[in-house]
């Protein structure tokens, strides 16, 4: 349907010579209203600490960084009397060290801001998450892409609602290897190589599944992501870290609406968006918008290295062979020496940074600790 829109528009502009589009500023309805955003959850696995980040919303047109709530009082209370206080780390981040929780207790979060506003979530149960059983992959018949799947099961049949997040890391190489660099206006041997990089991405799409309709709590071959050969992520080595989070039914509904209303932009032919707020309310004004969903979970994660490669190396010829003097002035990167026949001093082969410096494409030369 989306593709109809430009057509109609173009047809119109032709037909009536002036179907026009002008910028339109939606009313700045909430310029004064900043709403609290509670990002984080209570990690009940007893091993990791829990983090809560308190920030504020801002109007769409605002390009500044998001405001944070400093010096708030963040506590988690159990319905059987337990009380945990978070300590402020800074920049709106509040942390609670790892500890044991009573799994049969219900918890809620209470936030008191410096403006003396109080926010309280509804009680949530401690949701156990079973470990990820396996991560598998399938290569498309034409080798154009690779799909990664997840399998999990809860023998107790209690989890039922799942959400996944993942981060992908891939190693990639610059086509040209730079052996020299310029230091203090002199050509020296390169000390740290810039042709091997690792890049990490955390796609934001919300992945959800439910086994509520199944007789057993089993998730089979749930597609996590599709990696295209053309992206060159699969050329050397690709790894994915999948985080599995068990959800309550209510929590599932929250993420489901979030997925439907915020992963689309509001164009003419897109669905009507709706308001998504979570389980946190202002104590004094229940109508006030508060974003975020408080939950008590034990996330599980698993890393998987794809034992296959896809795609073709890019060919990237050097740009030139130049004299030392020119090499020192060149914005390009020195690849290697070239000693022409009979010459006493070597020339240098140079290449563009796109071809010789892998960092240009956003990665880092620091090998991740988990890399195999």
């Amino acid at each position, binding site marked *: *349907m989306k*593709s*109809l829109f430009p057509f*109609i528009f173009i*047809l*119109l502009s*032709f*037909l*009536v*010579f*002036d*179907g*026009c*589009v*002008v*910028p*339109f*500023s*939606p*009313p700045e*309805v*909430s310029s004064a*209203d900043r709403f609290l*955003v509670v*990002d984080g959850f209570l990690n009940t696995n007893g091993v990791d600490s829990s983090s809560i980040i308190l920030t504020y*919303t*801002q*109007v*769409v*047109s605002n*390009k500044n960084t*998001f405001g944070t709530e400093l010096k708030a009082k963040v506590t988690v209370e159990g319905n059987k009397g337990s009380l945990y206080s978070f300590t402020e780390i800074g920049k709106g981040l509040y942390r609670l060290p790892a500890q044991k929780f009573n799994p049969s207790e219900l918890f809620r979060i209470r936030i008191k801001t410096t403006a003396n506003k109080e926010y309280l979530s509804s009680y949530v149960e401690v949701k156990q998450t079973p470990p990820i059983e396996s991560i598998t992959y399938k290569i498309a018949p034409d080798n154009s892409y690779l799909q990664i799947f997840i399998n999990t099961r809860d023998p107790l049949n209690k989890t039922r609602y799942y959400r996944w*997040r993942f981060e992908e890391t891939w190693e990639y190489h610059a086509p040209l290897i730079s052996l020299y660099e310029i230091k203090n206006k002199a050509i020296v041997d390169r000390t740290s190589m810039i042709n091997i990089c690792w890049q990490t991405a955390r796609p*934001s799409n919300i992945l959800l*599944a*439910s086994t*509520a*309709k199944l007789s057993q709590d089993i998730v089979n071959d749930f597609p996590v992501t599709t990696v295209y050969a053309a992206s060159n992520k699969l050329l050397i080595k690709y790894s994915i870290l999948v985080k599995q989070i068990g959800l309550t039914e209510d929590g599932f*509904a*929250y993420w*489901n609406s*979030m*997925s*439907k*209303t915020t992963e*689309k*932009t*509001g*164009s*003419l032919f*897109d*669905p*009507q*968006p*709706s*308001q*998504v707020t979570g389980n946190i309310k202002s104590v004094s004004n229940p109508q006030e*918008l508060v*974003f*975020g969903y408080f939950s008590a979970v034990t996330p599980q994660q698993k890393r998987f290295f794809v034992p296959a490669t896809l795609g073709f190396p890019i060919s990237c010829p050097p740009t030139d062979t130049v004299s030392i003097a020119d090499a020192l002035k060149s914005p390009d990167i020195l690849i290697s020496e070239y000693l022409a026949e009979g010459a006493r001093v070597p020339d240098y082969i140079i290449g563009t940074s796109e071809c010789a410096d892998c960092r240009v494409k956003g990665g880092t030369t620091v090998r991740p600790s988990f890399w195999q």
Partner: protein
Amino acid sequence: MKKQLFLLCLLSVFGIVTWAQNKSEKRITIVLNDGTFEQFVKEAESQTGCFFYYEKSLLDSLKITLQAKDQTLTSALLQVFKGTDFTFSIDTQQRVFVTSDQAIITALPSNLFEADNSTADQPQYVAPTTDESDKLLSTAESKTYDIGPQRQRIIEGKSTVSGYVRNAVTGEPVIGAAVYIESPSIGVTTDALGFFALKIPNGKHTLKIKSVGMRDTYRRIALYGDGKLDIQTQESVTALKEVSVTAGKDANIAGTQMGQLKLSIKTMKQVPTAFGETDLLRTILTLPGVKSASESSVGLNVRGGSTDQNLILLNDAVIYNPSHLFGFFSAFNPDAIKEIELYKSTIPARYGGRLSSVLEINGRDGNKKKFVGSGGIGLLTGRLSVEGPIIKDKTSFLVGGRSTYSNWLFRRLDNNSFNKSTANFYDVNLQLSHEVNQKNSLTLSGYFSNDKFKLFGDTAYAYRNQVGSFKWKHTFNSKFYGTFTGAFSKYNYSVGTSRVPINAFDLSFDIQQSNAKLDFTYFLHPKHTLDVGVSSILYKLAPGRITPAGEKSLILPDVLEQEQGVESAIYIEDRYDVNSRLSLSAGLRFSTYSFLGPKTVNNYTAGYPIEKIYLEGITEYGKGKNIRTYQGPEYRISGRYRLTDNTSVKASYNTTRQYIHLLSNTMVMSPTDIWKLSDPYIKPQLGSQWAVGFYRNLRGNKLELSVEGYYKTMRNFLDYKGGDSLIMNHHIEAAVISTTGVAYGVELMAKKLTGKLNGWVSYTYARTLLRADDRTSPEAPNKGNFYPSNYDKPHDFTLVSNYKFSHRFSLSFNFTYSSGRPYTPPIGKYVLEGVQRIYYAERNQYRIPDYYRVDLSMNVEGNHKIKKLAHSSWTFAVYNLLGRKNPSSVYFRSQNGIIQGYMLSIFGRPIPTVTYNFRF
């Protein structure tokens, strides 16, 4: 006065006895001393109940001195006129006629007509069917027609006179013509075939005939018994910009119908449009209570209903997509249309299947006398139609076609991407009518429309309507007639792309319905008219099929299983004229719908929302297996109370049911929207409407004022949930959300129908609000509270006017104002788990800027010489004269991580057009 008196005498010749024979005469007591005759009359009338007829100027010099005590009126009058030339007579109806010299004889010799009771044959008047009729027409009014078996004496009682009203020139039936007598006030309107049947007291009457665009005429009849009278009428003056908006000049006062609007093609032709072409649906959009979500769309929202809730009938066949070019043009050729009728409140019981309105489009019958043609050339389209007799005065045909030349224009453009784009449409109308004999007539009509677009030489869209209908009308007797209608409608669209061979596909959608119905009208009694009928519709719907195009395509073929359903209905409706003031109409329609196999139905876990994640297996149903039945009654009740001759109040209550739904995820109606039959999950839509109205006609029915208010509810109205695609969706029931709608409003209208200046002014205040049925669902918009619909535009003001400077030159001026359409803006953003998310205001809580537009058009007719090759006219129009950039929609795009809003205005500049029309 004398003339009147004479006429009165003539009319009261029968059944009158002279005063001398009157034994039960009233008595009076009166004392007058040198009084006037007027005083005497006043006193006598009040005491006896008699009514005096006399020439005032003759009697004003008469001085009366009289002392009467309990005398008969006769003896008192004899005293009064003693010694004068005046004489008098009294008839049985207590009327006193005062004349000089000669007394009026109020009765004939009593034995004059006693004989001759045996003329048993039923001589019927049959209208001449040859060219003589033209000559006869002028004399038709002066002649008295004898109806029924002629006797010497008229028998007391009532008889039915029936027949057809036809256009004397073309032989076309005149629809909706009022046929009535004034004393007592009894009247009917002609039906779709021009037929009328009127039960009136035996005796002499003047039958008056009034109708849209036709000259008012009358027939004098002497009614002896049941009989036939066909009436030919002539078009009023020349076919210039004749003003004719509604049938029956006082129909809005006298009828029980509410929210009914009728427009003749002539009225539609004077409303300026964006592309110069007469546009049926755009003209309807100028009427109160009818709106559209966007200026670019002709999707009608009638009194808060959605675009799929209108039953659009072209000669009784359903049109699924009434537009061309993605909704910019209406799909009807103005040359092939006679008139339209829109029911937005009181829907007659014979119609059903849609919630909000019925739009009846009557095609034009071909000329039964001679071959004629007409056509026009406009900015984007050309049209031509030819009509004429096949058998003179019996059978006629009309063929009309229309096409665009935008393709040719595209190819003229320098831009390469435009060169490869194509936009093409055409439509063809065919109408055959045949009069078998006096009692049987047949109509066959066909319609075909085709649209084709190609975007930059890539994705091709095509859609078409194929429609046919057959109508047979049979008159059993003058009180009872029936119509059999068979119709077939098919709508399909296809989308295809072939640019990337591995992704090339063809996608198609198809819906078709076959329906048959029988309608009977029975003139039970002068005060009762009964309509009964049955109908049945078979739906077949192919919801989608995608196939790879070409050998290289990797698209997996997929077919959505065909759906079928049967909708049947039976109805009865009685129009009851209680007395001259009160008139009631009550109808009951019972409709039943079955969703039939073969079909595989998805099951969902009980107690959970219908969501894909709760899917739990399937159930297969065999061929013809009844999967789910919905049925229920529909009530159609309306009443009219006439306060005075020119003022009335009306009230009505209507309920409707709809078993077919249009699923759309776009703001405006799109040809690729999906039709869906009711199934175990998608319940039929139910509607009800209460309406009251006040009507007043001023200046001899020339100016009509009306106020109508309504309150309407809609249940099981589907709204798109979002997230999922509607196309090729195997779980379509999970992609929609059921809502309840409430609409209410007030419509004020003033119409002036005649005179040099004519047109209408209307103001509407209307709201349409929706609310999710499952109010606690996280999907429910606005936390389960009411929110405005996409086409909720509270204020609407429209002025449509036309001024005739002369027979050859007229000017039209339109002004439209409406509130802006609601939209949902993103109002803020926040970060969650490192990702920026947007939040929106509550749904449709904001409005785009208001809309207003001025249009002007000028019509120049060619000369009026009767003998010339072709009759032509030019229309010059400017749409959006002020060039206001009216926003049509606003939308938001994310660019470099920043959300930017845009406002699209479609006709943001004055658009001049020229159209040349011709007739030959």
